[in-house]
């Protein structure tokens, strides 16, 4: 293998990581973040929440099982700006494989680098916080641009209203960059799902809405004013609402809460969250303290919890907020991904809990 000296990742502070290109021959800039999941790279790469970001995967062998058919992706294209791995595997083996990861990246025009010491890069991002950076392929420089200054949600959201599944109840999913698996998990519950663009005023739709789900999405929640003001209206109308990830932050902001940027965010499939209010000691009635393993992908978090709400979950590692729930009404949101993909399916019950509270399931 001949090392292409012109392929490298350069961080904002000038640190360089020389690598071997295995994606598109194209230079890009973005926010450099790392994720520690050991499987699920096709899901991660197509997660719209990664829009504008250069994703570093800490698991050292990436590409092992190639890329599956589009119907298994989380959106219709690769969302990351660029990919950085330790070793790329160009000889995958899997029954559901359609192409190699390299072929896919080149087809979609996404640059990717193999830099061996992703651990050093991860430690740097962990210690110094996420930073801007650029992937340079073939010597072409690009200006460093902070994606968080853009309205990334507007970029990744659907442009048209579409519906999925059949059911007597209608759930509106506000697409701020929704992962396809949210739709799949809702359809599996025999509900009708209407996916609407990020800036849709749900209260003005010309059909009855039984509940609203605010999706995940990329970037700084404070950049999504339009959605925030729309959520206010939904809550005023007392339509049951569930927020996921960015949706958690937007719900909080809409109702008087605040958000802030984490040093290096949570991007992994092994984040422990504790159900608030469960007692530390076991007793026969409560079942004791409950903890769930979750998939997370966020750089911002809720700080101040809005009035009338209480903490629903908190992170067992750093005690950050992982969800809020209204004291009496069916308004709730989680910072993690109950739809997973990639990651553990342990909190899929959140959907059922919400629909029960929202009386979507009737008396069941």
């Amino acid at each position, binding site marked *: 293998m001949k090392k292409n000296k012109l392929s490298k990742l350069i961080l904002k502070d000038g640190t360089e990581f020389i690598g071997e290109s295995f994606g598109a021959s194209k230079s890009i800039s973005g926010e450099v973040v*790392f994720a520690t999941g*050991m499987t699920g790279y096709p899901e991660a790469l197509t997660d719209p929440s990664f829009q504008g970001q250069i994703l570093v995967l800490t698991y050292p*062998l990436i590409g092992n099982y190639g890329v599956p058919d589009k119907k298994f992706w989380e959106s219709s294209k690769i969302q990351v700006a660029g990919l950085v791995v330790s070793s790329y595997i160009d000889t995958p083996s899997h029954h559901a494989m359609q192409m190699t990861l390299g072929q896919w990246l080149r087809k979609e025009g996404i640059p990717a680098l193999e830099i*061996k010491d992703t*651990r050093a890069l*991860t430690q740097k991002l962990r210690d110094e916080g996420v930073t801007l950076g650029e992937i340079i392929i073939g010597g072409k420089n690009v200006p460093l641009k902070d994606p968080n200054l853009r309205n990334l949600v507007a970029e990744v959201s659907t442009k048209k209203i579409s519906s999925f599944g059949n059911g007597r109840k209608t759930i509106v999913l506000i697409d701020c960059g929704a992962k396809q698996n949210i739709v799949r998990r809702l359809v599996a519950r025999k509900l009708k799902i209407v996916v609407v663009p990020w800036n849709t005023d749900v209260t003005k739709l010309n059909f009855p809405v039984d509940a609203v789900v605010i999706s995940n999405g990329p970037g700084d929640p404070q950049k999504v004013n339009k959605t925030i003001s729309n959520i206010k209206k939904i809550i005023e109308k007392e339509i049951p609402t569930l927020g996921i990830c960015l949706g958690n932050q937007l719900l909080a902001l809409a109702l008087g809460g605040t958000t802030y940027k984490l040093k290096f965010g949570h991007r992994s499939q092994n*984040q422990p969250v504790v159900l608030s209010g469960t007692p530390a000691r076991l007793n026969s009635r409560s079942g004791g303290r409950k903890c769930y393993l979750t998939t997370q992908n966020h750089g911002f978090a809720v700080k101040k919890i809005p009035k009338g709400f209480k903490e629903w979950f908190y992170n067992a590692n750093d005690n950050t907020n992982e969800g809020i729930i209204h004291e009496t009404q069916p308004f709730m949101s989680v910072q993690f991904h109950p739809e997973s993909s990639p990651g553990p*399916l342990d909190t899929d019950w959140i959907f059922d809990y919400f629909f029960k509270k929202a009386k979507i399931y009737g008396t069941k």
Partner: protein
Amino acid sequence: MKKILVLGSGALKIGEAGEFDYSGSQAIKALREEKIKVILINPNIATFQTSKTLADEVYFLPVNDYFAEKVIARERPDGICLSFGGQTALNCGLELHRKGILKKYNVKVLGTPVESITLTEDREKFAKHLRNIGIPIPPSGVAVNIKKAKAVGRKIGFPLMVRAGFALGGQKSGVAVNEKELKEIVKGALAISPQVLIEKYLHHYKEIEYEVVRDSFGNTVTVCNMENLDPLGIHTGDSIVVAPSQTLNNEEYHKLREASIKIVESLKIVGECNVQFALSGSDYFVIEVNARLSRSSALASKATGYPLAFVAAKLGLGKSLLSVENKITKVTQSFFEPALDYVVVKIPRWDLSKFTGAHEQIGSAMKSVGEVMAIGRSFEEALQKAVRMQSGLLESVTDNSFSNEQQVKKFLHIPTPRRLFAVARSIKGGVSAEDIHKITGIDLWFLYRIENIVKTEKKFQKNKILNKETILELKQIGFSDKKIGSLSGKTEIQIRQLRKSMEIVPSVFAIDTLAGEVPAKTNYLYLTYHGAHNDVSPIGKGGIIVLGSGPYHIGSSVEFDWSCVYAAIALKRRKKYSIIINCNPETVSTDYDISDRLYFENLSFETIADISEFENPFGLIVSVGGQRPNNLAKQLALENFHILGTKASDIDRAEDRNKFSALLDKLNILQPKWTSFTSMKQVLKFTKAEGFPVLVRPSYVLSGSAMRVCYDKKQLFNFVNKAAVLSPEFPVTISKYVENAKELEFDGVAQNGVLMIYGISEHIENAGVHSGDATIVYPTQRVYASTEFQLRKIAKKIVAELKVTGPLNIQFLVKDNRPFVIEINLRASRTFPLLSKAMDANFPEVAVDSFFNKAKKLHFQYPKGVVVKSPQFSFSRLLGADPILRVEMSSTGEVACFGRDYDEALLKSILSTNKFYFKNKNVLLSLGGNLNKAKFLDTANTLISLGYKIFATNTTAEFFKNNKIKCKTVRKAFEAKPNALNIIEGKKVAFVVNLSVENKNGDFIKSRRDTDGFRIRRATVDNQIPLFTDLHLARAFIKALSKYGIDDLEIKSYKEYLH
């Protein structure tokens, strides 16, 4: 909970090895941290968990319900832990529960409820349970005729596995892919059995395992998943295992994870559980569930850094996963799933050539005796490391000793320990990965990685360009300096210097359980060439490297790990930083809290040198990890690494036969006559002068055993010509074999050539039985004070001459009160833990003190009692192996028990390695040779007086009748029924004594296989009946039986036996 009883797993055996020392030790530490008093039952004296400092009380007693009840009655614990001592502890616990003993004494089972364990142990009920909760299991059915078989077959779908019911060893079983084949196989099977079992044949399914942890609050995590490189059909203990899984996508990974959690939840597991799956495409089945710590959980623990046993013990006390700190990061807790940023490869270690006649093929029954684990940033790097760790003899997957293409083909098709090498060789020979996949069922992903290694090697062999780019590429793919050297015509040292001059050195990476996400305070390290930084900075002169023992195998087991662990602990006491290097995941020495730094790395010169040059420690300890590190002393010293204790040149004087022999002559110390020869002519000169029998030791063995006793010229010629290489390069050593001599072990620690502490123990068998297989007693029972005096004198002379500092072991042969020295090892020996515990003096600690010139002469007292060590054999696991004691070692483990006297200790010790029923008063005697018969006469009378009914094979019976001893004659094994085999198979006898004249004679394997003796011995071990093949041991056992019944055996803790 104030007092808890922990059950250990007893002796190391195939299928139940060192991993349970690790899990038991962690459990005891976890409990003691909660200020709970811990009682341990485990007769395995070589383990760390049976040390005085760990549990509050240790009982060196058999792990069975009889002795456990006695201990419970005496100690009255509040709770009992069943899941840390393997199947042995679990079975014992279930028996205690079944008999109502736990209820009677109000002992609570900690962790998973007994009902759940019972459920998982009952195949049929458990299958029903899994079906009820919607978990798929391989569909199966039973048929009594062809019509029914067809119906069952149609329901399940082809291919099908058909087995004859109640038939041993897979007789008349087969795979049917269509109805015609099904009909044929069923017809055959019904001919020998009233029913056939038909099961879905999971041909070439992937085998995947999950390690699950659940607390009593219902919080559950899967700590690790693992993928077997070998497809289903090869026992996971005999499979190459990779962590995490490599070929599963997110959906498959989480589908299986969810199923594991569902099972664990349904069983209300509290603690640890292992779930095994078969997976093919989107099809999966659960194939096994172990509701306890297992070999896999030990591996998962080391692979991820998550201390499973420690956590499981805490959960057993009712703690939540959230309240148990993550011992690796120290900043997070135990409710999480480790994210790995490396690849782990485990390769089993087999020793099948050590067992005469054992079948080489591997399959559904485990045969390996140990394992190694390698960590890398690529699969290739980890795999090649593991290959080097496994035996220390191979450098790469491309190394092999296949003599021709036919052999390669054979080993590719038949699964054996050599399959991996046959795969690499086949790829090299041009067989496509796709074809190999079809033959072996190994996933293409793995084959492509092996192909990458082969191709890279080929490419390098063509141009041999040693530039920075090429060398780095070879190192990243896991090639050693030695291998690169042999490919390019250079020495290991030349390549080493070249690569260092190019600044190609491995990076030191840490295992932190969270892939770098949090700054963890971890001491758990590995080396990789896929890095550009180090996670830690060097310790420097305050550090001392302790070399571990590598994989457990015949001759090197948990006893060496025990010495390593205590060396590390002693270093701490001396305010030094200990740096352990070891590659065996079944050990305590590789636990997170034993050393200041742990390198999970190979014990090779290259790796040790790399670590030493990085850490720049004060020195290295090579003398506590057994022979493997000891062998490296010379090369390490040559390259100027500081070895603590005895100088490498003096170690060499003890190891080199010629030098050592000259030394003994110089010191006027007797040794058996010997010579080394390179031609048959020289040999005849020797045997003419000294006579037969002789002990023959080739320096290069083609196959089979490395040592043989030859009784005549014909045997000698046969052995040397067929099994060994005889050339000036590979001389063969021959020595006079002294018959009917006693063997004594002298263990000690010296400082600057002066003995600081020593102990002498005695073999119960005569010399000729390998010391690892011998039954050993301390203090000596039949040795004159004058002999011991002579031994001490000789030892002192040798120690002074070799200026020994550190551990030593001398093996003596005593004939007519004259001691001969047969071997010396300037390292900790197998008997170190036994003597340390019996004498209540920690030998490895004294050794560490001696390195710093701080050892003091220790005056010790003899213990109040006697301790006897017995070997544990695993013959029943090894189809075809002849269960007989020879000059070569074949035991896999040991136990030792204390008693008031020799008889009591011996009895307890034998009960710990055998299932012996006192109430069964029948015995089978088959005594070959007139001398054996005569020497057994008194003992036979003892048996009669004890009320035993003697069954004897014909010549033995004849002899007894002539001597007026009542016995029943049984026919020979090959004669008509009822014969000797029927008596054994019907479990009619309590034990079997089979003495054969050709006992020490390893020759004539082929003819012996079919002898009566072989068949009797084999049937005895197959039916788990105690077998005695040594006259002295058999006599000692029967004498002990005459003195003690089971009720007479005293139940005393270890501490009570010390002064």
